[in-house]
């Protein structure tokens, strides 16, 4: 019984609502009509694979990867680590995890970010890594700052890191955001609030992990990620109608 079955259908009620008037941009960017629900096909069950040759030595070190090791980024040093598993609780090895974030002042290095918090000359804001054979990954970075954004009159994004994961099939593709334990802005954020299931929102909040922190160096936060799983059964490939 190999892990080649159909993808388990997405539980859309465990995801954010596409249309949420409190997150104004979603109003014109959400489909009005229902999605077409279908069993996965080889087009969704296959997907790109990336090898270790892709990953540079500093790619998962956002403190150093923009300056090429010349000078560290400004901010509170943190390690973000965790495990990528699927809905069957199986590890997802050798899959690409990408992150991006604002700097310690809450500013992105992007032509469209005009917030007056300063750019850090030694911080770019992106990183990537592959999970190991057991699904584990880690990044070294600085804690991103909260920042204001144009939505309602006075909305602020909580401190967050964007996380993109591939899995092993195109149908597993996922982008999410990591929030930090104890941040009072999470409860006020209309983007976080697009996730209506409280337990699912809690799963986006990384706890402080003192056991994984390094004395006199960095604090650690743990962020586990669950991707869609595949049905595990020998009752597959029945001709139509049987």
């Amino acid at each position, binding site marked *: 019984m190999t892990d080649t079955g159909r993808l388990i*259908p997405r*539980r*859309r009620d*465990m*995801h954010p*609502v*596409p249309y949420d008037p409190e997150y104004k*941009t979603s*109003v*014109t*960017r*959400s*489909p*009005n*009509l229902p*999605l*077409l*629900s*279908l069993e996965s*096909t*080889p*087009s969704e069950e*296959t*997907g*790109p694979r990336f090898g270790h040759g*892709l990953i*540079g030595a500093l*790619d998962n070190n956002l403190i150093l990867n*923009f300056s090429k090791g010349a000078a560290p980024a400004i901010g509170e040093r943190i390690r973000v680590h965790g495990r990528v598993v699927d*809905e*069957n*609780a199986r590890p997802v090895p050798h899959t690409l995890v990408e992150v*991006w974030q604002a700097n310690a002042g809450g500013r*992105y*290095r*992007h032509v*469209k970010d005009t917030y007056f918090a300063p750019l850090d000359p030694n911080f*770019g*804001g*992106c990183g990537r890594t592959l999970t190991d054979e057991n699904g584990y990954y880690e990044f070294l970075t600085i804690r991103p700052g909260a920042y204001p954004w144009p939505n309602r009159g006075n909305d602020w994004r909580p401190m967050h890191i*964007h996380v*993109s994961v591939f899995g092993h099939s*195109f*149908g597993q593709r*996922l*982008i*999410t955001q990591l929030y930090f334990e104890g941040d009072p802005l999470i409860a006020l954020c209309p*983007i*976080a609030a*697009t996730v209506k299931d409280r*337990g*699912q929102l809690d*799963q986006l909040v990384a706890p402080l992990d003192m056991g994984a922190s390094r004395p006199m160096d960095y604090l650690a936060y743990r962020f586990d*990620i*669950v*991707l869609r*799983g595949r049905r595990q059964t020998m009752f*597959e490939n029945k*001709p*139509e109608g049987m």
Partner: protein
Amino acid sequence: MVQKLGTLTETASQTGGPYVHIGCIPTFAGLPGVYPEDLGLSPIAEGAKGEVITITGSIYDGTGWAMRDAMFESWQADGTGRYPGTPGADPAVNGFCRFAADKDTGEYTLRTIKPGAVKGHDGRMMAPHISIWIVARGINIGLHTRIYFDDEDNSNDPLLARIEQRPRVDTLIAKREGAGQYRFDIRLQGQGETVFLDI
């Protein structure tokens, strides 16, 4: 009480936000040098077998405005319908591409080879198609759709056959505009809304 299933729930999606390019295609976003080059620059290498094609289009929001900040990923089979990584697949086709709407015009371009038809699990052939995944600010969970081609026989495609309103089938079919040139516009909402997939 019953036995515990021991299964997990998929992590909730969140929007890629306005700066998704920083994380996925940093050189495009104005951060050159962090990586040697952006991931997914091309789904094909020199010598890929098949007809080289270019697909261009725009993605429109519910007001009809061409979005300038959307990012796309595509995944496809090789010219004979084999997915990369499966036996006999063309080694010059990696099948994956990342591309973005132009920041000034909103137009995107995908240059690739036309994929072959792919056999489904039930043995029925799926007409040649490219799978597309769309993320942007305001899109809370990435949108899946497919690009088919108007110069292929799409009449027996199992996915297209499932679309009840026949005019909506056209939203998934790229229009041939010249030799190797196709147009595929995406409408997120409203009149002519593209069929998006829960698949």
